[in-house]
């Protein structure tokens, strides 16, 4: 554990990628396979299912620190992180509780609850086995004993790291790709191979790590997907650049229009369909196996030849139309898929790339070739199969090929993009036809050109202290727009301002506080901000009647008084008409944040958008 804490300190002490990489390489070179496996698990943002309820953890920490619960909460508000708060509050000289029962012989190499304290210099895996895993499902007294025992052997930094493993969310500013590079460097394997072996589901065991760094063959588990290619934004995120910049943004892409293929940017769930031997598998970008969630794909997937891997997007699709993302989301949230939901929200896989063909890895071939083969695979034979089969051809396959546009001029692309909202897509994707399929954002040669966000001028009406880097500052804002003479709260936004702006607004919030409700302060309405939204939808569940998606703050409108802020009427007028037949009326406007609710959402928050 001590060594892992030192790794954390080293990673935390620097912002330089090279130094982080060096620390990681050193760690992976020295660690045992089981320690390496567990560190990989935590460093890649994975977490164990909840071990100790946060409430219980707070209670225990308050008791040990001899402070009242309200004081714990004040401390938490100032720190902004539960693991850190607990570490800062625990008494330094926490005495290891007296032995409850004599040590028993270890069985199967596992430390049981009743064993004596594990020395702090034992490995991460031993600590996880001794103090973390046994917490699950244990009674309160046992949990207290285990926690106290672990804490009593660690210094404050060690306690913080431990609490992070305990509560989940262990992030130290290292990306998945950096960790992958470090493992590759420490083991002398190519990065691509390590990345590929890390895809899909795995358990943090010594065996897994041994396989990961094995130099034998390059065979990869038949179930594994490939690392996903990512796209860069044509417009820097958060820039809120006006419309007129976009054509020049395309103009700045290297090469000529003929070098590119354009596709719709689907508003769905990115996935790979792996059809090797055995049953087809569907993987999300967050390494979640989705196969069972999309039974309607199974038969179509089985018709694909063995040794096929497709990259594409899962979308809700009915009657020749894409359905709003919220419906797909709703379906995914369901524990069981009823017949009615399958009928209401049928899904399709829109394939846009071919990564493996006839059992051969095609990723190094140019997109032009991959796309041609994909068309061959999905169009021609599909038609033949459909024609040959007895089934009604009206029921088209649930695996469809993404529409592609070749050699469009910037003006044609601009016109296409303008159709996005109407078509229920997020904009256009532009992909270089000569590029291989590369994991990562820079190398792939993919660009996303999203539809312009909705923008609204809104009034700041409440604020809350942020977390992490924003702890201690009022940085989480609630915004309102006018409905008649009333300001109706309609959106919360956290991102988009610089640190300097945050500090300035923080001071203004403090000066204009009207009331406090727990951590929230309501303020005198006086500041107007321009907000941008990926999407706005009508919603009966929200006071304002509007559900917002991915809000961000574009800028403060010092030139506007609160009277100049937008009205609800105007905002509603922005929204597309509700005539879209595809949307069942009672489902309209149900919006839940994608990032918060999707269990397989990208563990790395910086990654943001899925493509």
């Amino acid at each position, binding site marked *: 554990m001590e060594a892992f804490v030192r790794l954390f300190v080293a990673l*935390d*002490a*620097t*912002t330089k990628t090279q130094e982080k990489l060096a620390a990681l390489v050193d760690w992976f070179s020295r660690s045992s396979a089981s320690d390496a496996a567990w560190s990989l698990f935590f460093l890649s943002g994975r977490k164990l299912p909840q071990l100790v309820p946060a409430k219980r953890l707070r209670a225990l920490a308050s008791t040990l*620190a001899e*402070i*009242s619960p*309200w*004081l714990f909460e*004040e*401390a938490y*508000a*100032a*720190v*902004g*992180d539960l693991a*850190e*708060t607990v570490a*800062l*509050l625990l008494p*330094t000289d926490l005495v290891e509780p007296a032995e409850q029962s004599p040590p028993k012989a270890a069985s199967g190499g596992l430390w049981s609850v009743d064993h004596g304290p594990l020395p702090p210099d034992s490995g991460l895996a031993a600590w996880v086995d001794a103090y973390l895993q046994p917490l699950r499902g244990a009674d309160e007294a046992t949990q207290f004993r285990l926690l106290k025992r672990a804490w009593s052997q660690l210094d404050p930094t060690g306690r*913080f790291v431990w609490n992070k493993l305990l509560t989940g969310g262990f992030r130290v500013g290292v990306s998945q790709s950096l960790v992958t590079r470090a493992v590759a460097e420490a083991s002398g394997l190519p990065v691509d191979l390590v990345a590929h072996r890390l895809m899909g589901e795995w358990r943090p065991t010594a065996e897994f790590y041994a396989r990961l760094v094995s130099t034998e063959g390059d065979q990869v588990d038949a179930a594994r997907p490939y690392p996903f290619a990512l796209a860069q934004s044509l417009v820097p995120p958060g820039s809120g650049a006006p419309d007129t910049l976009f054509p020049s943004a395309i103009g700045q892409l290297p090469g000529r229009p003929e070098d590119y293929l354009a596709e719709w940017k689907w508003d769905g769930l990115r996935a790979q369909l792996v059809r090797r031997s055995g049953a087809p598998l569907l993987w999300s970008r967050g390494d979640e196996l989705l196969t069972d969630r999309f039974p309607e794909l199974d038969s179509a997937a089985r018709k694909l030849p063995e040794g096929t891997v497709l990259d594409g997007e899962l979308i809700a699709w009915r009657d020749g139309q894409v359905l709003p993302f919220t419906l797909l989301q709703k379906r995914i949230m369901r524990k069981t898929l009823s017949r009615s939901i399958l009928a209401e929200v049928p899904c399709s896989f829109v394939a846009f790339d071919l990564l493996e063909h006839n059992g051969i890895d095609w990723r190094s071939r140019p997109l032009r070739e991959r796309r041609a083969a994909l068309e061959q695979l999905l169009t021609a034979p599909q038609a033949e199969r459909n024609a040959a089969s007895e089934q009604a051809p009206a029921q088209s396959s649930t695996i469809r090929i993404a529409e592609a546009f070749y050699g469009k001029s910037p003006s044609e692309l601009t016109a296409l993009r303008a159709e996005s909202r109407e078509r229920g897509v997020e904009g256009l994707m532009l992909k270089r036809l000569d590029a291989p399929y590369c994991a990562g954002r820079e190398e792939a040669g993919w660009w996303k050109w999203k539809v312009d966000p909705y923008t609204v001028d809104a009034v700041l009406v409440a604020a809350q*202290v942020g*977390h*992490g*880097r*924003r*702890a*201690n*500052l*009022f940085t989480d804002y609630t915004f309102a727009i006018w409905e008649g003479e009333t300001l109706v709260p309609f959106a919360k936004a956290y991102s988009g301002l610089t*640190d300097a702006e945050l*500090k300035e607004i*923080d*001071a203004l919030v*403090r000066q204009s506080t009207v009331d406090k409700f727990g951590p929230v302060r309501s303020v005198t309405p006086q500041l107007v901000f321009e907000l941008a939204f990926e999407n706005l939808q009508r919603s009966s569940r929200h006071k304002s009647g509007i559900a917002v998606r991915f809000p961000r703050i574009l800028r403060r409108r010092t030139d506007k008084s609160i009277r100049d802020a937008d009205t609800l009427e105007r905002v509603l007028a922005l929204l597309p008409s509700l005539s879209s037949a595809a949307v069942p009326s009672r489902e309209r406007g149900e919006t839940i944040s994608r990032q918060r609710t999707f269990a397989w959402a990208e563990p790395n928050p910086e990654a943001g958008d899925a493509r």
Partner: protein
Amino acid sequence: MLPMSMVRDDLLRLTPSGLFCELGGFFVDPWGPVAKAVITHAHADHARRGSAEYLTTHSGKPVLQTRMGPNATIQSIAFGEQITLGEVRVSLHPAGHILGSAQVRIEHRGEVWVVSGDYKVAPDHLVEPFELVPCNTFITESTFGLPIYRWRPQAELYAEINAWWRENQSQGKTSLIHGYSLGKAQRILAGLDRTIGPIYCHASVAVCNRDYAAGGVVLEGWRMLSEAPPRCDWSRAIIVTPPQAHGGDTPHRYGETSSGFCSGWMTTRGIRRRESIDRGFPLSDHADWPELTSTILATGAERVYVTHGSTATLVRWLTERGLDARPLRTQYGDEGTADDAVAVEPGAGAN
């Protein structure tokens, strides 16, 4: 927050210019220009220019003179020396915060009020150690008034700073250590191991060093930045510099640098990361939570006014223990945690 009540026998009351002792005809740390100002210490949020006469301690006088300007009229007295001002007796007692920093004790017919100013209880072996002054009413700061603030021993932090300096040296990086020019910088200087390499001080730190020397605390083994040799190997050096000098404007001539920041605020990761520094050292000149709470109780005061920091938290904590505790709105800092964040900002006052 309610202003301090204005009961007749109050020895101090809050006026637009600050804390006023009517019976004595003087202010304590006023924020407006007044006739007579008793100053706890020379930090910008406690000592402001423009008053006709200042009173401080002997060792605190040189620093105060520098900050108030050569024409300011400053009288000084010894720690513990009792003087009579109007109808009250006034004495100054060590606050342990910076050199010459004082608590102001005001006595009238057996009633004793003490204004703590900023204070630190653990001795740092550099400035006059804190003295506990029993009183009826205690006006206390609360900068670090949360139980998450518990300072580690100074020796441990010094060892950490020196280890970091060595480590930077071995990686060919220049060490830039940030701390408030008055008080913190001198504590840093006192802890640096001269055998590691040369120590340079920013001009504003050097000025305070000289004032410290004039006040009786001589720090040796450092040079002004401007006195560095023409082809200085910066990678061996450490530069003691105020927070203002941190940020995007690190001169390139130092080559690759690593920045450290000494402040109690460095306790929490969020603030460390926000300030984009490489290392934070929670070396503070203020009382931590155990010191604040135990000192307040130990003064025996039945009434406590809390200012300057986590006011509400400390008031509630004291109230729970049966004390008559009230917030006091001064301009030494606003209520709420974020002023604290502001305090690490350039020039915002003591840290």
